[in-house]
């Protein structure tokens, strides 16, 4: 998985999958992200948390190379994100046209478009890879189904299968767990663990602090600035949370410090940054 080098941009040996150097983004005079510095090693599974408008979606889009920072530098394996085809990005409110007549297998195959190449058609090898990807997300039974017929959790799994078939090494997921039931959430978290063990770097934006603390080994706490970054226990310290959320977070003294009760959710972030 990790030894696939894109024809587009070669990966520098030893360079980290994601390196953010003083990254800022201003949009119409409004500061969306300020001076983000982070270095994310391979195979990490990181939760990106923060209040509404903290810039989680913007950060994802910057790393995906869909927008450019106004200042600073983003490097993916040593080069700017624009030339990479090793990045998979699953937006929160995707612009997917669910009415397109395509079945699940075809949608997963879309991830392989560069491996297939212009003027070529999928080979048996490509179909095998797609079949394996569907198997890993436990969606083989739906291979012939129209993509529009699936439930939200199933659609998320198809997008993960697409990232697998793409042989992506950096996977960016924007609120993949929102609106899913516990079973679907666990299924997706399980797949993400699989990816991590295969050396893939996964960034998951979520508004659910409990989930972030429980399931992710590293947490990025964001509110325009990077407030903390590290293991959940330290990154989600009481001071850090107050700094990020102000009074939005209610805290109760618990057995091991603080118990996070609530955080208002998530819709409408970065509405003005339509790409």
């Amino acid at each position, binding site marked *: 998985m990790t030894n696939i080098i894109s024809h*587009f941009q070669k990966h520098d040996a030893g360079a980290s999958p994601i390196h953010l150097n003083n990254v800022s983004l201003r949009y119409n005079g409004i500061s969306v992200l300020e001076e983000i510095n982070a270095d994310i090693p391979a195979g990490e599974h990181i939760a990106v948390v923060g209040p509404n408008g903290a810039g989680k979606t913007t950060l994802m889009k910057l790393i*995906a*190379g*869909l927008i450019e920072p106004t200042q600073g530098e983003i490097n993916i394996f040593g080069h700017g994100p*624009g*030339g*990479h*085809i090793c*990045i*998979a*990005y699953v*937006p929160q409110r*995707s*612009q*997917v*046209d669910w*009415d*397109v*007549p*395509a*079945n699940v297998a*075809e*949608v997963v*195959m*879309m*991830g392989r*478009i*560069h491996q*297939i190449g*212009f*003027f070529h*058609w999928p080979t048996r090898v490509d179909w095998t890879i797609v079949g394996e990807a569907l198997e890993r997300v436990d969606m083989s039974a739906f291979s012939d189904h*129209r993509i529009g017929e699936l439930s939200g959790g199933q659609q998320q799994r198809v997008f993960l299968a697409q990232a697998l078939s*793409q042989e992506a090494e950096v996977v960016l997921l924007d609120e993949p767990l929102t609106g899913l039931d516990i079973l679907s959430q666990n299924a997706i978290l399980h797949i993400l663990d699989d990816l991590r063990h295969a050396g893939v770097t996964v960034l998951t934006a979520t508004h659910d602090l409990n989930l972030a603390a429980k399931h992710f080994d590293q947490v990025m706490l964001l509110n325009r600035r990077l407030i903390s970054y590290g293991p959940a226990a330290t990154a989600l310290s009481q001071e850090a949370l107050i700094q990020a959320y102000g009074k939005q977070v209610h805290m109760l003294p618990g057995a091991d410090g603080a118990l996070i009760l609530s955080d208002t959710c998530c819709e409408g972030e970065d509405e003005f940054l339509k*790409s």
Partner: protein
Amino acid sequence: MNELLSFLIEPFQYSFMLRGLWASLIVGVICPILGAYVVLRGMAFFGDALAHIILPGVVIAFLLGWPYAVGALIFGVLAALLIGFISRRTDIKDDTAIGVVFAGAFALGIALISLQRSYAVDLTHILFGDLLGVSNSDLMLMGILGFLVLVTVFAFYKEFLVLSFDPILAKTLRLPVNFLQNLLLVLLAVVIVISLQAVGVALVLAMLVTPASSAYLLTRRLPNMMLLGALIGALSSVLGLYLSFYINVASGASIVLVATAIFAIIFVVAPQRGALWSWLSARRERSQS
């Protein structure tokens, strides 16, 4: 039996009818194949506008003695790029930008025609087609352009599918999104030029969207939608020509009417996505609860 045969054969004993048949078949097959993307990407208004926008191009080409297709293509491509430019650079919404360019260019075309003496005759031919006036060289041009469209749609099949499915995905996969979008617009302009003589600028839209959306109601995959659309388009062309011959209706209009009738039938009876099916399943659910 013999009567039926002669009924079927009679129209095509005239060579102009035979050329008309070939021309309408080319249009009937090519339009729905590209039309699948017009339907999926919601470009119906754009397609209609583009058809009208090429009017001044056709007139200018006619005045300069060029082949009409050249003028139409130049205007079609320029207008497509201009609309994109207006909506990207200002706060004006896409459909407004299209409306402005569409109406302006169409007016320019009418103004240019009105300066000519043969106003009435030519305008109706451009607006509603002149299937029976198709010459051998027209037919050749239509065939070549149609073939090029088919080859391009085939060659960029998977890229166009990704673009229709999710433009963000297309960008993340580093597909040349702008190039593909412009290519689709150019293909659209070419298909309109091909259809000009068969159905005219006012009815091109029907050939682009009606058979394709009929096929959409019946299929689950894009290749099937294209093939079935082409079949419905070809059937509409042939039936329309008979209708035109025997009851003396304008050929472009009768082809479009047949296509519309086929759509109406499929719309009602199509399994799963048809109106009747939805009504029945809604009733069944009501009676169960």
